[in-house]
């Protein structure tokens, strides 16, 4: 795809290519056109498609292995089920249980588990160059038109969690869950009363209540920014380093210079950053999951 764009534009514009690889495909050229409802364009862009792919993949893999495991006469987990079960148990016993407590454990564990697996998979898919391989295949073999399905698929990044709209939506679910958890544990009025500690002088509340309301909103905002920025940043770093190949080719008007820089600097560095990205992928999924569990726990077990 990089080569393709280079061919069109003549000179290589690194910024354009990188943004094209990390951002969503244009809403004006969606993969599937859908009508606009209430002024909102529901057309399926690349990121919507990736959301569905991630969700479908997770549903099939997790449900299939769980059902297979449960249908056994003697439930002994093997292979993938072992890993899945270990992760599920870790999230339940080490993330949800300490913050939420035993009483509401089974209410919030499914949500936290789904958050973890969804974010982890969405993060990880971004590291696999599926569409770049498809683009290469298209460039040399298929020669599909820009407006064809394959042509449309090639636009836009694959990491949905690097899109602020996606992470904001996930953080909104966390935000609603916090209120729901507080309401479930203390009643609707009780939850809002828990925002500020009781028994203080009234002038304190004038300062405290706005701060608490800000804090309430800052939590999901921080979740949104942290995840999206982390997932965007790593990809930009990898793509920038790989851009050296083309920048140097342009600079010295020689493909050899670009390949040389690629072999010596760009590819080794990109490999190292990709390795780092694997850690980031897991850490960010863990952090989002952990913070969601902690925030829900804070609404249930109020400490002043």
């Amino acid at each position, binding site marked *: 795809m990089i080569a393709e764009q280079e061919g069109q534009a003549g000179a290589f514009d690194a910024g354009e290519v990188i*943004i094209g690889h*990390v*951002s*969503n495909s*244009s*809403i004006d050229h969606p993969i599937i056109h859908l009508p606009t409802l209430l002024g*909102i*364009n*529901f*057309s*399926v*862009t690349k*990121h*919507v498609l990736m*959301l*569905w792919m991630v*969700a479908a993949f*997770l*549903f099939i893999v*997790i*449900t299939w292995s*769980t*059902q297979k*495991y*449960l249908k056994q006469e003697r*439930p002994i987990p093997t292979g993938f089920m072992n890993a899945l*079960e270990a992760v*599920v*148990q870790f999230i*339940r016993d080490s993330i949800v249980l300490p913050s939420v407590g035993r009483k509401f454990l*089974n209410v919030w*564990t*499914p*949500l936290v*588990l*789904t958050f973890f*697996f*969804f974010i982890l998979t969405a993060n990880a898919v971004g590291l696999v160059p599926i569409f770049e391989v498809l683009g290469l295949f298209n460039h040399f073999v298929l020669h599909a038109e820009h407006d064809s399905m394959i042509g449309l698929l090639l636009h836009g990044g694959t990491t*949905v969690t690097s*899109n*602020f*709209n*996606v992470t*904001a*939506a*996930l953080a*909104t*679910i966390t935000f609603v869950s916090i209120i729901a958890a507080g309401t479930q544990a203390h009643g609707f009025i009780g939850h809002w009363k828990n925002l500020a500690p009781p028994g203080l002088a009234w002038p304190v509340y004038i300062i405290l209540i706005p701060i608490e309301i800000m804090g309430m909103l800052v939590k999901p905002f921080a979740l949104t920014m942290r995840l999206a920025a982390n997932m*965007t940043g790593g990809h930009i770093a990898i793509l920038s380093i790989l851009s050296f190949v083309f920048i140097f080719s342009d600079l010295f008007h020689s493909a050899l210079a670009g390949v040389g820089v690629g072999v010596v600097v760009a590819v080794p560095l990109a490999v190292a950053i990709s390795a780092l990205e694997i850690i980031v992928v897991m850490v960010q999924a863990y952090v989002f999951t952990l913070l969601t569990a902690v925030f829900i726990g804070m609404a249930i077990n109020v400490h002043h």
Partner: protein
Amino acid sequence: MDNPLIQVDPGLFIWTILTFLVLLGLLGKFAWKPLLAALDSRHELIKNSLDDADKAKQELERLQQDSKAIISEARVEAQSIVAKSRSEAEKLKGELRQKAKEEADSIVRNAEKQIQVETEKAIAEIRSEVVDLSLLVASRLVKKNLSREDNQSLIEESLEQIESHRA
């Protein structure tokens, strides 16, 4: 705000919430709920199994102690039976010996008595034989039958002679 990285896209926002909630519902129903239940039930199973193993171990220990007690009891009983039967045998042996001795004694006594009776009988027989013979001899000598009184006195005389002779 032309930068596609920070473009506001409410469609994507709503799609994300919908996708996530559908995934949550499906996974919750078909994966998380049964899986968490299975984890809990296995937790229970392992706990119960360990408890059972502990119980079985205690039971085994108790049984071992029981069997040890039974064995030692049986040993003591066997020893007492052996001792008892030994003493009984001893007693029986003594009784038998006593009885045999008594029997032997009575046999000997009977034999002695019989011998005495037989002897006396023999002596009486001999005596009558002697009388007959003397009578015969005397009658032959006298060649005539004496009167009964004479006979009697003669016999008395002869007998006295024999008695004195014998004495």
